[in-house]
Structures are given as structure tokens and as C-alpha cells.
């Protein structure tokens, strides 16, 4: 590792349980392999160790972090280390009273996911009634004077309503609007044929988002995250493996990203057995894809290798079978045909499935 590998953000996935069943959930599909194993004391220790390592941001995420009954205590623990703590939530189950308690415990900011601008399509994606509650939660966040991020995952079934989605976020008084195209991994990969938009659909939506970004400058921070399937060059996944982020799963594994535990051949340590400092500095799994030594061609000699780090290791594995391959979303990857085929299928209405596969916990 180099001097530049500096932990900034701890992502605490407090539980994989969630009242929603979103068809693009980024949690691993083998949810039952990772039950909640960390106590309140374990999480508080992890926060303290992360702060010592230099982390300044803490994302309280999941699954649904509100399902942890000790969330208030965890937020207070985060506050004691002066973290910028961000609650990343579906908004279920939550009351205004509990949100107030979380604010009083020191919560910095709230990110609420909204699936669509209309209740029916939103709830078809989420797999349950939830739209009204989400709007209520967003309103409470503003009433309690907390910063509000609205996060909307984009795909072929809601991209055509992007203007309405932006209007909804404006109405709710969002401080930040994340328009993030689906990342096709985990549950989203299982539902890719149903979710992947056409290029035309995407470019129309992109133009609308760009205009909104300009119009709302200084009022709402609008982010539009292109899907890497259409960008020809891969994303700098997690700003590089083991460079800025560390994620802890509900069962205590310390990972460089959300799905690293789905990669074969890597052993990830538990925070119940090792300190974050030992893991960050000495774990062979964190070292595995740091730097450039692991890179194959075309990455190794590519001038963009310090910008995108060869893309996403999980995408490389789940699409090509080898985590050390160049991310196939890169136009230079020998496996890029996997991506162009998926894009071509998105142009054939007869090939688009109608029934999604909802997230479920298979035992």
C-alpha cells in the first residue's frame, strides 16, 4: 500500500434484513450466509478503530439500518468520534419521534431511497407498499432540519419519468439528489434483462438531468451516475480497492467493497478477530488488488489505470469468472462483447422479461 491509501469512509452494513424486496438490491444474493453477528459493543469498537485509522465519514447502511434497535446508541457512538454520519435508509419502519431521537444522538444527514415518482411503479420495484411512508420520512427529515439526500436508482422502468422524479425531489426540499443508474451486480444482475435501459432512453434522461443540475445549482446538488454498461470505460469502483473505503458486513467481515465476499479465493477477516488497523494494513485480501501489480493487459499499460484502477473486481468476476480480469464494461476488455450483447438485448422488446425476481432470503 502507498501513502495515498487512506481510509476516509466506513460503511457499516448493520443488517442485511430489510422490509423492502427491491429487485436491484446491492446486497449479496446469498443473504442467509451473513446473519447479524455484531453486538452494539462490537460496532462501537469498529467505529472507534475506524476513527483512529482516519475515517471521517460513516455510512449507516444495510439492508435497513432502522431494524437495529440500538441505532440511537450507534449514532451517539459515531458522534463521539465526530464522524459525519449518514443514515442510508428505505424509511421503513420509522416514526417522526425516532427520527428526532436519532438527530438528538448526533446524526448528520439522512438519505432516503425513492423508487419512482408514482406509487404503483415504485412499489412494483420495492415489492411492497412503501411510497407514502417514504414521502412522509423525507418531509420529517426536512421538518427536523436534517440534510436530505433523495436517492433514486434508475433503470428502464423509471428513466422515462426522470423529470417527474426530479420535480418530486424538489418538492420534498432535497439538499442532494442522487440519480444513480443501476449497478448490474447481485440482485440487479439477476434482473438485468428487465432493468437495463436502451441507449436512447438513457441519453434523453441524461440531458434532462444535466439541465436540472444547471437549473438547481446552489440549491440541490444533482448527481447523475451513468451506467457503466454505456460509458465505454469502467468506473473507479470504490475509488480503488482498499484505498478510501472499508465496509463491515452484518456478520463482521471487513471488506474493500459491498460484494468482495462473493469473490472466491480471498479470505476476509472478521472484526471480531482482528482490528481494523491490522486488516487495513496487513490483510492479504486488502492487498490483493491494491496498486498495479495484479493488473492484466490492457490495464497494465493503459494511461487510465490510475484513474479507474481497472474498474470493478466484482463485475469482472461475476461476468467473466475471474476477478483479476479487466472490468468487461471497458471497451478495451477482451470480454466487452458480454456488455454489447446485453445492450443489444435491451433493444428487443420480446426479450425483456415482465416479472422481476424479488430479493428474498433463501435458507
Amino acid at each position, binding site marked *: 500500500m502507498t501513502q495515498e491509501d487512506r481510509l476516509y469512509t466506513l460503511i457499516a452494513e448493520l443488517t442485511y434484513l430489510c422490509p423492502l424486496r427491491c429487485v436491484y438490491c446491492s446486497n449479496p444474493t446469498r443473504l442467509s450466509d451473513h446473519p447479524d453477528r455484531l453486538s452494539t459493543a462490537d460496532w462501537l469498537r469498529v467505529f472507534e478503530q475506524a476513527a483512529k485509522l482516519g475515517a*471521517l465519514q460513516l455510512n449507516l447502511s444495510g439492508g435497513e439500518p432502522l431494524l437495529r434497535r440500538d441505532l440511537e446508541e450507534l449514532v451517539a457512538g459515531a458522534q463521539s468520534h465526530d464522524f*459525519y454520519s*449518514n443514515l442510508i435508509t428505505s424509511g421503513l419502519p420509522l416514526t417522526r419521534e425516532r427520527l428526532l431521537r436519532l438527530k438528538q444522538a448526533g446524526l448528520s444527514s439522512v438519505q432516503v431511497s425513492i423508487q419512482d415518482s408514482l406509487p404503483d411503479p415504485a412499489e412494483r420495484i420495492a415489492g411492497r407498499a412503501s411510497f407514502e411512508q417514504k414521502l412522509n420520512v423525507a418531509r420529517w427529515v426536512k421538518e427536523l432540519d436534517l440534510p436530505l439526500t433523495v436517492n433514486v436508482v434508475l433503470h428502464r422502468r423509471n428513466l422515462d419519468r426522470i423529470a417527474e422524479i426530479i420535480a418530486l425531489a424538489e418538492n420534498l426540499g432535497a*439538499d442532494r439528489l442522487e440519480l444513480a443508474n443501476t449497478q448490474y451486480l447481485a440482485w440487479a444482475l439477476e434482473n438485468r434483462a428487465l432493468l437495463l435501459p436502451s441507449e436512447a432512453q438513457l441519453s434523453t434522461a441524461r440531458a434532462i438531468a444535466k439541465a436540472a443540475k444547471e437549473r438547481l445549482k*446552489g*440549491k*440541490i446538488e444533482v448527481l447523475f451516475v451513468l451506467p457503466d454498461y454505456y460509458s465505454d470505460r469502467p468506473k473507479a469502483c470504490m475509488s480503488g480497492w482498499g484505498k478510501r473505503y472499508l465496509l463491515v458486513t452484518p456478520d463482521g467481515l471487513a471488506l474493500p467493497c459491498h460484494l468482495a465476499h462473493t469473490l472466491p479465493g480471498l479470505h476476509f477477516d472478521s472484526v471480531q478477530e482482528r482490528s481494523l488497523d491490522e486488516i487495513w494494513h496487513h490483510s492479504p485480501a486488502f492487498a490483493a488488488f491494491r496498486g498495479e501489480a495484479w493488473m492484466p493487459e490492457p490495464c497494465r499499460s493503459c494511461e487510465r489505470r490510475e484513474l479507474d484502477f481497472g474498474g470493478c473486481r466484482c463485475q469482472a468476476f461475476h461476468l467473466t469468472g475471474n476477478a483479476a480480469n479487466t472490468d468487461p464494461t471497458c471497451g478495451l476488455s477482451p470480454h466487452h462483447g458480454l456488455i454489447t450483447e446485453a445492450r443489444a438485448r435491451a433493444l428487443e422488446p420480446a426479450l425483456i422479461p415482465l416479472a422481476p425476481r424479488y430479493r428474498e432470503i433463501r435458507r
Partner: protein
Amino acid sequence: MSPEALSLELKPKLAPKTKLRLDPKTGKYILLYPEKGLLLNPTGAAILKLCTGEQSLSAIIETLAEEFRSDAGVLRPEVLGFVQGLLDRGLLQVAP
């Protein structure tokens, strides 16, 4: 809007979504906001510490000129450019 167009009577303050704190690893101040952080040089940090919503830009520039033993006229464009940039990004606000 160009920085020169900023009224010196405006009283900027940090947006509620931000948190200004010292980064112990670098010894520099950092302005945190959702998912991101802006590492500040000493001038940037000094400006933001004065952005409490109670002082006008001209008062802020005067204070900085004393603190850095510099000329207000020299500091003005730098301060206004910095403030405008943060206003555009929604990290600073001015009272309506």
C-alpha cells in the same frame, strides 16, 4: 454569477449539510458533506470559520487581512472566488 458580482454585504454561512472539522491525519481542516469532503488550505479554513451568518463578506475580508497581515484589496478576489464556488455547490448559503 461571477464572483465580482457578489455583494460585500452578504452574510454567508455554512450549509446545514456540512460539517467543518480538523482532519487529524493531515492537520488540515476538512469540510464534510454527504459522501464527500473538501480538504482546505489555511486560507480556505480561515474563511469558513468566519462564515457564521453573522459577519458580512467585507467584515470577513477585514478580519482575514488582519489575521494574515495582508491587504484587504489583495485578499478580496481570492475570498470572493472561494465563496462563490462554495455557494454554487450549495456548501455555503446566504440569508434570504
